[in-house]
C-alpha cells in the first residue's frame, strides 16, 4: 500500500524557498506508520540543499543535471514523472507557487493522477484523500476528495503551515537521469522588476488600498491621510493591474512581503495572496464595507463601512488632535 509522501524542494537562485520547509513539516506530521517523507532535490548541484534538508526528511532523492540549473517545467516533469511512476508515493506535495502552477497540472495529466491545487489542509483517509480549499475569495471552504489507490498530487498555499525544525537524519540517494532534450521552450533569464523610489518593505506604517477605492481620483484622499500619519501608500493587486500605482507598491505573494508596525487596509477584501504579504504586521486595522471580508479574520481592529467616509473622518480627527496637542 502507498504510504510515502514526496515533497518537491523548491529553490531559486541557490536558496530553498520557505514553502519547502512548511511542506516537509506538514508531511512529517501526516505520514503514516511505515511511510517515509522524501525530499526531492532537482538541481545542477544539490550538495548545499541536501545539507539543509538532512534533518527534515527520512530520505532525500537528488537528481543533478545541467538542465536543472533553472526551473524548467518540462525537465522537471520528465524526472518527477519517472520517479513517481517508479516509487509510487501516496502523495506528492507542492507549494501553490508560480513554479508549481507551471508544472503540477501537466504532470498530473502525464501520470493520470488526481490533483487538487491551492489547498489549505488535507487528510489521509482509509481509501481517500480529502482536501480543504478556500474558494470565492476565501468566503467559502470546499472539501474535495479523491481515491488514494493510485496516489495523487496536492499543492498547498504558502504560509498555511508553520515550518518547524525536523530531527531526522535523512538517507541520501542520488539518481542519474537521462533527459530528453526540450527544443520548444527555453529559459532565457530572470528579469528583475524596476526598483521604485519607495521601498514599502522598509516602511514602519503602511496605508494600503484595494478595490474599495473605486476610482483613481480617490487616491489623493489616501495620499493625504497617509501623509498625516507618516505612512507610505501600498496596495493590493487590482490597483497595480489598473495602473493606478506602480508594481513596487503591491503587497502580496506576487508583490512585496511587509512587516510594518501599522498596516491600515482600506477596501481590501483580503484574499490569500494578499494576506500572506502582510499578516505579520504588528497592528492591522481594516476598513471594508463587507462584514464577511476575509481581511477581518486577520485584522486586530475593523470598521465595516465605506473607506471614503472613514478616511476623511480619520484624517480630520488626527489633524484636530495634533493641533490640540501642539497648541
Amino acid at each position: 500500500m502507498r504510504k510515502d509522501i514526496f515533497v518537491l524542494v523548491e529553490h531559486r537562485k541557490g536558496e530553498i524557498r520557505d514553502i519547502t520547509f512548511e511542506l516537509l513539516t506538514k508531511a512529517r506530521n501526516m505520514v503514516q506508520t511505515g511511510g517515509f517523507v522524501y525530499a526531492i532535490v532537482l538541481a545542477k548541484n544539490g550538495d548545499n540543499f541536501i545539507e539543509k534538508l538532512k534533518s527534515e526528511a527520512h530520505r532525500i532523492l537528488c537528481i543533478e543535471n545541467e538542465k536543472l540549473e533553472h526551473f524548467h517545467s518540462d525537465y522537471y516533469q520528465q524526472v518527477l514523472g519517472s520517479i513517481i511512476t517508479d516509487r509510487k508515493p501516496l502523495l506528492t506535495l507542492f507549494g501553490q507557487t508560480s513554479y508549481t502552477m507551471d508544472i503540477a497540472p501537466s504532470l498530473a495529466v502525464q501520470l493520470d493522477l488526481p490533483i487538487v491545487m491551492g489547498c489549505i489542509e488535507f487528510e489521509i483517509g482509509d481509501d481517500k484523500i480529502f482536501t480543504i480549499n478556500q474558494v470565492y475569495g476565501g468566503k467559502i471552504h470546499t472539501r474535495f476528495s479523491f481515491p488514494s489507490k493510485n496516489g495523487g498530487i496536492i499543492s498547498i498555499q504558502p504560509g498555511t503551515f508553520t515550518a518547524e525544525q525536523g530531527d531526522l537524519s535523512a538517507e541520501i540517494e542520488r539518481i542519474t537521469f537521462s533527459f530528453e532534450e526540450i527544443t520548444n521552450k527555453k529559459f532565457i533569464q530572470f528579469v528583475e522588476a524596476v526598483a521604485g523610489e519607495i521601498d514599502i518593505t522598509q516602511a514602519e506604517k503602511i496605508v494600503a488600498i484595494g478595490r474599495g477605492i473605486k476610482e483613481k481620483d480617490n487616491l489623493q484622499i489616501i495620499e493625504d491621510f497617509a501623509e498625516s500619519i507618516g505612512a507610505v501608500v501600498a496596495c493590493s493587486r487590482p490597483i497595480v493591474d489598473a495602473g493606478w500605482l506602480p508594481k513596487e507598491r503591491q503587497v502580496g505573494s506576487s508583490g512585496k512581503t511587509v512587516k510594518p508596525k501599522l498596516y491600515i487596509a482600506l477596501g481590501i477584501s483580503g484574499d490569500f495572496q494578499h494576506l500572506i504579504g502582510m499578516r505579520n504586521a504588528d497592528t492591522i486595522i481594516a476598513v471594508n464595507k463587507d462584514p464577511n471580508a476575509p481581511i477581518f479574520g486577520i485584522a486586530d481592529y475593523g470598521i465595516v463601512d465605506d473607506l471614503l467616509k472613514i478616511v476623511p473622518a480619520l484624517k480630520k480627527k488626527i489633524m484636530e488632535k495634533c493641533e490640540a496637542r501642539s497648541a
Partner: protein
Amino acid sequence: MNSIVCIKRVPDTTSATLKIDAENRKLDDGNLVFSINEADNYALEEALLLQEEFGGEITLISVGPKECDDIIRMGLAKGATRGIRITPDNLYKLDPYAIANLIAEQIKELEYDLIFTGCMANDDNFGQLGVTLAGLLNIPHISLAVKIQANEDYAIIDRELEGGLMEQFNIKFPAVITIQTGINEPRYASIFGIKRASKKEIRFVENISAQGIKVHTEKMYLPPPGDTAEIFTGNPEETAEKVYEILKTKGLI
C-alpha cells in the same frame, strides 16, 4: 495567427453575502452578478492584440451553463471570430481535468497557434486549466505570463514569480499561455462590435457527459468563525475617534 481563448463565467462575490445550496455542493448564486473571469478578460485582450498585429481568427470557448453566451457574445463584440459553448449534463460535478478534457476534444478539429487562458479563476482559485490542457494536447506552455513579445512562430514571454521577480522563456507555437491580470488594458466592446457580434456563430455542444472526473466535491461550507477583528461601530466620527485612540495608545502617531 489563430488563437483559442478559454473563458469562464464567474460570479462577483467581493461584496456579496454568500449562501450555499441545500445539498452543500455549490454556491446558491441566484442573486449574484456574473461576468467573464478577470484573468480571462486579459487573456482575450492579449489574443485581440495579436490578431491586430498578425491577423487570424479567434475562437472563444467556454464550459458552463447557457448563460455563458453573454460572455461569449461580449468577446465576439470585441473582435473574436466565433464561439463554442460546452454544456455537459454533469456540469456541476466537473473538476479542472474533466473541463480540460471537454475543451481538448473540441480543439482537436481547430487550427491554432496559441491557446490562451486566464492564469486562475476567481471562483475556485485552482489555476489548473491551461497547463492541464497543454498536457492533454502535448504542446508546450507558459503560465502566469505578464509580457508577450510575439513573432510568427515563437514568442518571448515573461512569467511572474513571487516577490516581483520574473523569468523569461522562449516558446515555440503551438503553445498554451496562461495570462496573469494586469498584462494589458482590456478594451470595451463598441456599439458597432456589439451589432456585428449578433451575426457571429456560437456553436453549442450539449447532451454530452464529461468524462474523466477524478476529484469530487464532498461539501461546501462557510468557514468556521476564527479569530476576528474587534469591530468598531458608530458613525464615521465615532469610529475615527476609536482608531485615533488605538494609534495614540500604541504610539503610532
